[in-house]
């Protein structure tokens, strides 16, 4: 056994490597398939999609379907709206959650455990019933048809605080904080100048998750953004549904192209992930 594991790094081929690749490739295929199928539907006519068995290769209507989308909704206007909303929530959440996560992980104060437990308890309340009272608050604030209606409540993220606390508690050493404290650094400066650079992978992860979530969410935006000029992409796409005669080719075309920017965003965050990784390697 010992010999075999030593070989892993050096040899060109090993069974371990083979199985790891097999595992990753099969996982990737399963993950990729619905995404690919979305693309197939975006390239086909409704009639073709409804055939039995359904088609599994792309068709010829890629451009035509997207034209239909463009003539039905303000696709790029809505994409811009989505971008503004999703980036605002992401930036705000990253800041607030990492700050709170840092506090719970590294600072001592009265009531810490109870307050943290309280944050966890807020995650346990099923959110589905809050719709009507939350809508009521938004109308009372006069935020109907206003991006604030999505951005501000979107900043409440117990999950993010918990995540940041777990990550910071294991990856930011107490000694560094104590040393900085003795040097007279304020808590905020320790957080900002010392801790933040050490937790970039956590930022990248939470950033990806929050951005994707806000981008794809339509339940709440649908309720508070009624004016079509304020629609985010997912809300605008809903208007492609005809009451009874669904044009799946068109709907999937809109859906597919609405997802593409997410892949770009994912890759950008991933770069942050990798960079922080190599920096970490240099440091250590």
């Amino acid at each position, binding site marked *: 056994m010992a010999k075999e594991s*030593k070989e892993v*790094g050096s040899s060109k081929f090993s069974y371990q490597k083979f199985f790891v690749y097999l595992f990753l490739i099969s996982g990737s295929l399963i993950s990729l398939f619905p995404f690919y199928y979305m693309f197939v539907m975006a390239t086909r006519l409704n009639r073709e999609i409804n055939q039995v068995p359904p088609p599994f290769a792309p068709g010829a209507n890629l451009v035509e379907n997207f034209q239909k989308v463009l003539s039905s909704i303000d696709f790029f206007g809505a994409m811009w709206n989505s971008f503004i909303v999703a980036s605002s929530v992401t930036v705000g959440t990253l800041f607030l959650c990492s700050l709170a996560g840092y506090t719970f992980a590294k600072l001592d104060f009265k009531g810490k455990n109870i307050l943290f437990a309280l944050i966890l308890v807020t995650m*346990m*309340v099923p959110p589905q019933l809050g719709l009507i009272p939350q809508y009521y608050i938004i109308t009372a604030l006069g935020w109907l048809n206003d991006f604030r209606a999505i951005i501000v409540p979107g900043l409440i993220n117990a999950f993010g605080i918990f*995540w940041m606390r777990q990550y910071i508690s294991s990856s930011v050493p107490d000694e560094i904080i104590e040393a900085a404290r003795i040097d007279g650094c304020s808590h905020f400066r320790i957080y900002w100048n010392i801790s933040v650079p050490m937790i970039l*992978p956590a930022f990248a992860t939470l950033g990806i998750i929050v951005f994707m979530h806000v981008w*794809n969410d339509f339940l709440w935006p649908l309720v508070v953004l009624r004016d079509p000029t304020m629609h985010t992409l997912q809300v605008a796409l809903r208007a492609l549904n005809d009451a009874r005669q669904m044009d799946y080719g068109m709907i999937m075309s809109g*859906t597919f192209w*609405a997802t593409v920017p997410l892949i770009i965003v994912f890759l950008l965050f991933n770069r942050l992930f990798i960079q922080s990784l190599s920096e970490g390697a240099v440091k250590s």
Partner: protein
Amino acid sequence: METTTKARGLSEKKKTALSAYLFISPFFILFAIFGLFPMVFSFYLSFFRWDGLSPMTYIGVRNFELIFTDPVFFSSILNTFIIGLMGTLPQIFIGILLAFALNSTLIRYRNTFRTFVFLPYITSIVAVAIIFGVVFNNQPFGFANYILSTFDIGPIRWNAEYWPVKFAIATMVFWRWVGYNTIIFLAGMQSIPKELYEAAKIDGATVGQQIRLITLPMLKPIVMFVVFTATIGSFQLFTEPLIFLGRGLREEGITMVAYLWRDAFVYNSFGTASAAAIVLFFIIIAITAINLLITNRLGRSKKIG
């Protein structure tokens, strides 16, 4: 000297506490505005009959009586446990393995694989619904039934039979969330120093030993995080049953949140929906407490070992 440090320590403590409260206050202020009112409102509503449109009527604990005499409510609890276990446990296990593979320096094209594995979380729910409709179609040509037919198993009604419904929904849950958990594990693995693995390799540790002796212990806070959030997530399972079963939500596959959602928005019975939400809330708290107890105990015994 001693007195000065003491005085400094006191004010230091106060300063720290002050900064701490300041740093966490945004969450609590926002939550008080947008989260607390809906919670209190739900609690209040559970003692009323309300259809969302006409005035409310106080009916005491009648809503609780109604849900506790409803066999579907108990089915929904059982379903939630079954689907949660079927969908979540393998997710955590496979998630760790995937993350480990993606973190391994032996593998090329890691970014590409990473993107692919994460795709399900990005894929629009509309596409997911259509795809799983094709895979778990009741007709003989449905993908799953077609595969089963090669083993001489007759077509299964995936959206109506007791276990097939649960299996189909659990598969969807697994598919949608495994990449997400992988990315979280991956972030956790990034914080483990590479030297540990290198040292282990030099000592001749196998991959299995590396995972068991280095990755898992170092990853403990993250594993706890994933177990905790996945547990809560599986109790709040809603989207998958809804898109797989439609608004009718048959008894074979209804989950607790789907049950309360249907009471509220299909039957317009906000009182019973709120009562069910409260019961669910207490179940989640109880399960989480047990969960924490077990993970803590496991964590301790590992340290001793």
